[in-house]
């Protein structure tokens, strides 16, 4: 395909240099190669440049009174994830005073949070007669943004329809984190 347009070196008899006529064709293969390479580069960089976005909706807040809008839900349905430091979570089912599943430390791995969420997602409708799970994500002051994003990601993966980020961490929950040693600065 790629051929070189070589001059067949004149100097034949008679000393008459005959220039080979080739219709002025230039081999464009390399040029096309380069152009497509650049096209690919620009196509990929323009679309990959855009950062990912994760949409979050927070509950409406009554600004005037700043009333606690938390509603009481069936304690069998609620699973609370308290995000501590060092990429660890304490989770429990029900209320903190009398939990159905006692608080346990898990991490953000497949066998940690994901396993718990999937198990609870299957278990909650059985106990409550078809009602779905409600997950409360409660970051402590020692949690970092990455933890919150990871937790929200797990909600999407486990396909949990009802979840919320709550910033009203209870003193009992902080004490719990401290006891487990995951409330470090």
């Amino acid at each position, binding site marked *: 395909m790629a*051929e070189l347009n070589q001059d067949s070196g004149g100097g034949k008899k008679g000393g008459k240099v005959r220039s080979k006529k080739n219709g002025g064709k230039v081999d464009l293969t390399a040029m096309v190669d380069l152009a497509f390479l650049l096209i690919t580069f620009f196509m990929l960089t*323009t679309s990959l440049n855009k950062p990912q*976005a*994760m949409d979050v909706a*927070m509950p409406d*807040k009554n*600004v005037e009174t700043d009333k606690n809008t938390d509603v009481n839900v069936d304690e069998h349905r609620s699973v609370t994830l308290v995000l501590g430091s060092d990429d660890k979570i304490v989770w429990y089912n029900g209320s903190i005073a009398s939990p159905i599943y006692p608080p346990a430390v898990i991490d953000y791995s497949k066998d940690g949070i994901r396993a718990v969420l999937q198990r609870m997602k299957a278990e909650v409708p059985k106990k409550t007669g078809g009602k779905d799970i409600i997950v409360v994500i409660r970051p*402590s002051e020692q949690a970092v943004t990455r933890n919150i994003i990871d937790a929200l*990601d797990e909600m999407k993966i486990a396909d949990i329809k009802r979840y919320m980020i709550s910033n009203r961490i209870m003193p009992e929950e902080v004490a719990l984190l401290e006891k487990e040693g995951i409330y470090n600065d």
Partner: protein
Amino acid sequence: MGKAKVKRTSTSIDMTAMCDVSFLLLTFFVLTATARTPETLVVDTAPSYSQAKLPDGNLSVITVGDEGKVFYSMSDPNVRAETLKSMSSRYNISFTAEEYEKFALTEDFGVPIKNLKQLLALESGQRTVELQKGVPVDSTMDASNELFHWVKEARIASARILKDRALVDNKDPDDIELMTVAIKADGDAKFPSLNLIIETLRNQKQNKFSFVTGLKAE
């Protein structure tokens, strides 16, 4: 006896047309590619599996550094100028026409409004992150929470500009897309600094927002 003679044709193809097309496409991509503007405060966002993309225009981003430093950026230069106009009357700081022009070209900033003049006096290359200590944020809705008012005025300005544009185009002025507010927080930013931003947005009933995240490979 008729021996079929296979006609030997040259294998080389005429590439002129292909070359034309490819360079046309190349030119198109080069021209449409928006040059990535360098951010003053560089943050390392947390990765997520989210597939959604951030919109291109009509966007404002609140950047939170790992030490809680807050920067604000608006995507549209017209919105920037309008927002500064509202902010200048709210905080009783007047800006010159030249400063408005400069602010419209400012990608992001992280200074209290009383220091904005000094920032605008600098060349864009000199506006380093060290010089900017962040937009003041707190949990109130008062004048001390400057971010609250920046976001609020930007949202109003964006809606007004889009409404005017819709009227010019003979479209329904109520059918406009509202500005997207995104939070770009460093993965290591502690929750209290993030919580301030979330509460600032919730206080103005901006209950929907986006977290800017990186791409996580499976």
